[in-house]
């Protein structure tokens, strides 16, 4: 209660002016990685996708994993602001500006990767002018661009004093928008009736839970880094709240993953694809059990929840593992879902020159990796740059006992 009262006091925001060489160095490295990402995209577009690991079986490769990771992370990063504005948790309100900024930057980074991996990125204007409203992709184009507008307005209500009365309304609109957005992103796969690994409505809530978990983890990392590199105070109260929230969200994600797989294990028709993901011993099996479940969920939840781990390094490790888990999940869903062959004739074995009936092979190429990393670098670069020129970050987030 005492801390709540204290938090309701006016929060002083400042641009990040305190910086050493490390801040500029990090910005320079991020700019370089972003530039390399652009060069990789140019290389792939100039030559054509034959220089990638993608093929006519695995049509969406590593860039899509990065792009969708960033897009759902964007939606999740807004979670911190929503908790403050929509649910009235005053402790979270000082964190709102950075939350919105990070959400917008992550989304732009993800969309950049998505667009640069198109076969014809030069036709972006076509995508913005020809709409097939039955396509969930079209809906997502509108949802993604709309998200930038809605969150932008939400941010303005936080910055312009006279608009402050609209913060809750704008925050609620952004909260609803991001729910619909992640539902749309999950439905990209949920609506694919042809493939046994997809075609499941639960992918939408699964993506929502994963987005909240990944977004919160990224938010914690960025917050800790900014405060550490600028020598500002970041209290344990704030971080304890965030890490516990992240633990709950990670468990929620695991719950949806469990329901998804257990439901499919009950359906004989889906035993093949479930066996392929869960027990076949392929790269997807390792990514699922080791990357997604063990390292990506159970270990970070223990790190976040156990009283044995109290330091910032355990939070950093936990957040990085959550990110690893989210990335593993998307790799398994996106690539694994394509790798398992489609059922052309029920109950029959099929073979052809077009790899019917075979597990599709895919080895990500370096340019694909560089494009994806470029998107991540851009998102972080944009965030760190904007906090230098606009007052997004509270001067102090010290515990009340210290403040």
């Amino acid at each position, binding site marked *: 209660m005492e801390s709540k009262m204290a938090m309701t006091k006016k929060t002083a925001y400042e641009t990040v002016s305190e910086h050493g060489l490390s801040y500029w160095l990090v910005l320079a490295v991020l700019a370089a990685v972003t530039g390399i990402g652009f060069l990789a995209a140019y290389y792939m577009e100039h030559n054509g996708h034959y220089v990638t690991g993608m093929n006519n079986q695995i049509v969406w490769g590593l860039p899509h994993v990065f792009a969708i990771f960033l897009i759902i992370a964007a939606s999740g990063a807004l979670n911190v602001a929503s908790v403050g504005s929509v649910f009235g948790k005053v402790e979270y309100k000082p964190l709102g500006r950075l939350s919105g900024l990070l959400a917008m930057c992550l989304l732009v980074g993800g969309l950049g990767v998505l667009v640069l991996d198109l076969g014809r990125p030069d036709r972006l204007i076509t995508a913005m002018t020809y709409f097939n409203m039955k396509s969930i992709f079209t809906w997502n184009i509108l949802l993604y661009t709309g998200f930038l507008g809605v969150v932008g307005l939400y941010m303005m209500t936080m910055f312009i004093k006279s608009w402050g009365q609209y913060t809750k309304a704008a925050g609620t609109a952004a909260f609803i928008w991001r729910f619909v957005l992640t539902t749309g992103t999950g439905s*990209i796969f949920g609506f*694919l009736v042809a493939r046994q690994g997809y075609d499941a409505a639960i992918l939408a809530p699964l993506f929502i839970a994963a987005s909240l978990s990944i977004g919160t983890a990224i938010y914690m990392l960025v917050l800790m880094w900014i405060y550490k590199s600028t020598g500002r105070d970041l209290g344990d109260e704030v971080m304890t709240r965030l890490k516990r929230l992240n633990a709950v969200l990670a468990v929620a994600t695991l719950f949806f993953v469990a329901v998804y797989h257990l439901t499919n294990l009950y359906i004989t028709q889906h035993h093949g694809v479930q066996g392929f993901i869960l027990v076949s011993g392929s790269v997807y099996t390792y990514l699922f059990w080791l990357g997604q479940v063990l390292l990506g969920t159970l270990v970070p939840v223990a790190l976040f929840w156990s009283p044995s781990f109290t330091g910032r390094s355990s939070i950093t490790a936990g957040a990085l593992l959550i990110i690893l888990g989210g990335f593993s999940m998307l790799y398994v869903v996106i690539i694994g879902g394509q790798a398992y062959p489609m059922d052309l004739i029920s109950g*029959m074995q*099929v073979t*052809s*020159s077009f790899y019917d009936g075979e597990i599709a092979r895919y080895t990500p190429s370096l340019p694909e990796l560089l494009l994806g990393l470029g998107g991540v670098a851009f998102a972080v670069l944009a965030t760190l740059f904007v906090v230098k020129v606009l007052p997004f970050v509270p001067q102090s987030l010290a515990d009340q006992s210290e403040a």
Partner: protein
Amino acid sequence: MSQVKVEFHQADLSKRKLLKAASLGGAALAVAPGIKLFQAAHAKPDGQPVTDKNRWGLLIDVNRCADGCNDCVDACQTENGWGSGSTDEQNSRDDQKAQWIRKVSVKDPQTRREFNMPVMCQHCENPPCQDVCPTGASFQREDGISMVDRHICIGCRYCMMACPYKARSFVHEALSDQRAHQPRGKGCVESCTLCAHRVDKGKIPACVESCQHGAMLFGDLNDPQSPISTKLASIPSRQLREDLKLNTGVRYTGI
């Protein structure tokens, strides 16, 4: 020019002779027992839109589709300028090269029965590729033929994710050796057009014309008197992935 449809039972008569004979003839002709030629829909005059009066489709008899025969695939490649029909796609790996039609070998693991069949775009009445395409580049003609508008395809490949038949290919490199009637291009998705350029001129698709075993029948599913419709009415036939209720234009018998 008259539209000619050739029944399954072609025996050993030259198809070209049959086509020529049919083009000279008028109404249905019975050339020999089991061999029938029909005059049906006329070629669409240039400048007139395609209408839903016709719905073009194929009937494939897997019992006649010969093991090791690749004539339909070869004919499609030559006609549409992909695979061996073009000098393009030299950089692409085998798993990156386009395949508009392929021969699929099928085996029932329980009964050990084996058969072959060509698989191409199934020209669904409710095509998932069209549903998911963000720009509307995946579209369907009024006569049921599914196509890609290469002018507005952005190369997102969502249609390839959605197609249950793996009927679509993405072009992984720049192309130069193309047919004038079948433009292809780097970064776009493509698939069987049911040889729309031939159908509009009153011809049958190249794959059907090339089949020496009488395994493929092309015709108008909307015309109850057409050979394909009468055949479909008299024999059992199946759609691939009929559980999806896409009402495919390509049907199979003998599965």
